[in-house]
């Protein structure tokens, strides 16, 4: 006959043995530990050197043709912005036709059919800034998708499933960088994906390939020998709209505070 005291004693011992054993398994799971130690996952990152960009727009042209974005539609997966700071303190900026044809005039487009003919002597500073999808580590566009049509791959690229997208446009509103738009032919959300079909084959993105000046670079930033990863780790790089907490993976050299 088991006494009440013994029953409580044995059951407490039993619980202690079982829980400590299972806790030990949880703590030292050799296969898990091995996997995390040897983690060499690919993470695509992008580097834009704004000082090298001359605003030729060959990247935009290549992107549109490579990714089958209707050439004359006023939408693009990537674009180049021109910022002109005038001596009177004003900032004028434009990206005519996403800079598909480059910047082949002094006149800065102000919108509503208005242009400003900027004189050389009025310029305080002026430069070009290429823009594309930041492939954020915390992509707000993916969080808001109600149907699971946009998602992040293991290597950090955010893709859109054209078959599954219902065209609600939540993701277009959610992106703080305004990189998403509706594809004129499919009516589904569209965005830059670092040319996923190229980078997964060992090629460079079409815009990177097209840039004659090396202003755009792409690489696996988790690879310790990667050129882009090295620059991001060792040089003074900046990201866009840090305050949104999206952790963008497009890094900029020579960014200025006027850039939005």
């Amino acid at each position: 006959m088991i006494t009440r005291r013994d029953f409580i004693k044995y059951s407490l011992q039993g619980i202690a043995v079982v829980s400590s054993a299972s806790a030990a398994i949880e703590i030292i799971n050799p296969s898990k530990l091995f996997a995390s130690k040897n983690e060499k996952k690919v993470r695509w990152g992008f580097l834009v050197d704004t000082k090298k960009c001359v605003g030729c727009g060959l990247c935009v042209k290549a992107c549109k043709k490579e990714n089958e974005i209707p050439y004359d539609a006023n939408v693009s997966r990537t674009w180049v912005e021109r910022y002109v700071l005038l001596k009177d303190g004003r900032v004028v900026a434009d990206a005519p036709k996403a800079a598909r044809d480059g910047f082949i005039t002094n006149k800065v487009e102000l919108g509503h059919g208005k242009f400003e003919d900027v004189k050389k002597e009025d310029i305080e500073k002026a430069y070009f800034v290429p823009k594309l999808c930041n492939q954020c580590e915390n992509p707000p566009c993916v969080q808001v998708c109600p149907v699971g049509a946009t998602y992040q791959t293991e290597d950090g690229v955010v893709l859109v499933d054209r078959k599954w997208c219902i065209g609600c446009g939540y993701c277009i509103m959610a992106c703080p960088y305004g990189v998403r738009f509706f594809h004129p032919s499919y009516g589904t959300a569209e965005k830059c994906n670092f040319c996923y079909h190229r980078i997964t084959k060992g090629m460079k993105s079409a815009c990177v390939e097209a840039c004659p000046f090396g202003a755009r670079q792409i690489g696996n930033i988790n690879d310790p020998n990667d050129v882009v990863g090295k620059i991001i780790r060792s040089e003074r790089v900046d990201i866009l709209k840090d305050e949104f907490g999206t952790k963008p993976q497009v890094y900029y050299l020579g960014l200025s505070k006027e850039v939005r």
Partner: protein
Amino acid sequence: MKSHIWRPLYVVIGIVALILIARQFIVPKEFGVHERGYMYGWHNKADETFWKEFKVKYKSSEYCKDCHSDNYSSIKKTPHAIIQCENCHGPAIDHPENPAKLEINRSREQCLRCHLYLPYEQSDRSKIRGIDPEKHNAGIECAACHNPHNPNAGHKGHKHSHAEVK
């Protein structure tokens, strides 16, 4: 319990069952939570294959090198070596099968992408030799005088060097 309570309940159960059965057929097998977890990785895995197999159109100058070795090697000796063939000739796609002939973009606008002078000191644009297209032989194709494959050769039919031209 009375049947007027049970009957609508059966209808609701029937609708739910129907939705669950239909879901089995409509939702792809590979749809689910993948590497990036529920928040970022809830998707159809098969769509990744769609994007990976998207058609490559720009093949880079290395693709042109073997057949057009003359043009490839000559442009490599000039400042235009940094420009990919496809930037002026269009995407190679499966050339020479498809398309059989590539474009030759000789437009002034193509050259002006870099060679319209813009006084932007903070950008390398101001360091490229540029023109004012309204003053510099307006209306004439740049290629009429300048060879884009050998821009340093000076003017065709002229003796003076390029450096004299402003």
